[in-house]
Each structure stands twice: as structure tokens, then as C-alpha cells.
């Protein structure tokens, strides 16, 4: 049990670092869903099934959907490695993406 806990916490912290460090925003969203999934396992380990269930529902379904819909609406796809410049609809910026 001890080593499982250590591993889950390590996965959680590593993916939290990945959220900040991954250059691609969609990958960061995937990493943040991994954070909340590991967090839900941690909540089960600390005997909080209610909280684990809320975190599972929110992290697995809701938060990812909201983030992805917002990102899609932003249209900022590339932001990093596989960058593909989007046509800019706004005048006078040029500093974007």
C-alpha cells in the first residue's frame, strides 16, 4: 500500500509539472486530466470516496470538456511544437500564436 501511494503521488506531481512545461496547450489539458485522475486515486487511498467521486466526475468529464471547448473556440491550435498558424481575424495584433 505504501509504495502504491508513493507511485500515485509521484505520477500526480510529474503530470502537474507536465501541465506547466509541455509546450502544447492541448497536451497540457491532457496532462491536467491525468493530474485529477491520480488525485482521485489519492482520495480513495485517504478514505474519502465522496470526494474521490466528485473529483472523478469533474476531472474525467467536465473540466476536460470545458477546457477543450474553450481552446477550440480560441482557435490557438499550435502554441508550440506542431504549430500551424491560424488566420488572425483581429486587426492590429500580429503578436499572437
Amino acid at each position: 500500500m505504501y509504495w502504491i501511494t508513493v507511485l500515485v503521488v509521484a505520477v500526480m506531481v510529474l503530470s502537474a509539472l507536465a501541465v506547466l512545461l509541455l509546450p502544447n496547450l492541448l497536451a497540457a489539458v491532457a496532462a491536467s486530466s491525468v493530474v485529477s485522475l491520480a488525485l482521485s486515486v489519492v482520495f480513495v487511498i485517504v478514505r474519502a470516496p465522496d470526494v474521490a467521486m466528485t473529483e472523478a466526475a469533474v476531472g474525467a468529464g467536465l473540466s476536460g470538456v470545458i477546457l477543450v471547448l474553450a481552446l477550440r473556440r480560441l482557435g490557438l491550435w499550435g502554441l508550440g511544437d506542431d504549430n500551424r498558424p491560424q488566420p488572425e481575424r483581429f486587426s492590429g495584433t500580429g503578436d499572437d500564436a
Partner: protein
Amino acid sequence: MSLPPLEIVLYAGAVSLLIIGLAGLVMSEHLVRLVLALGVAEAGGNLLLVLTGFRQGAVAPILLGAAPSGPMVDPIPQALVLTAIVIGVGVQALALALVLRVRRAYGTVHMSALRARLVEDLDEAAGLPPEGSREAPGVERPV
């Protein structure tokens, strides 16, 4: 070498989530990544709260059958965190809507560009000539 107890491991995980989230809040350049970092910090805070009620060998605060078998963990932090998580989603959605709105108004979601635009707007509102902010963008202007 003696291993740290389980509580210390969990506590360290919660604190490092909190720290990573806060560092991301301060350092992130893109507004959506700022929202993500806020979520990470919030997760750390929630875990910290739940950990205050945890003790080893206790069971979940849910009665199965008549008598509880052994000690139970504290239900009050769990109830607090339950509501905190749901509120966190609302906050996240509202923050993303505001990011979309900022994008619509300013055409950018990058912090540095946004800051330059805000300084320009402030200068314009204060009646200062706009050249100053363009020539020396790093200089703080009296607001």
C-alpha cells in the same frame, strides 16, 4: 534509511501540487495555461484539506450495516472539499469565458502583449503621449 510515514508522503504531494500551481500562476505566459495552473493549485489545496482528517487504519465515514468497524476519518473536511471542487469547476468555466472575452477585446491571450496593450490604454486614458511606452516598454509609468 527509514521511510517517511504515509502522511508525510501525501502531505508532500499536496504541498508540491500547491507550489507547482502557484509557480505556474506567477510564471505562465499564456492565459489558458494560467487557468490550468489555477486548477492544479486548487487540487493541491483540496488534498491538503482532506489530509487533515485522515488517519491510518480508519475507514470511510459511511456506515455499512449497523455498527462502524473501527475508527472513521473526519467527515467535515470531506464535506468542505466536496463543495470546493464543484465551485472550482464554476470558477474555471468563468475564467475561461473571461479569457475568451479578453481575446475578443484585445486579440491576444499572451500576458506580455496584453500588459503592453493595457499600459497603452492607460496612457491613452491619462492623456500621456503614447511614444513613451513604445520606446521604453519596461519602464513603469505612473498610473
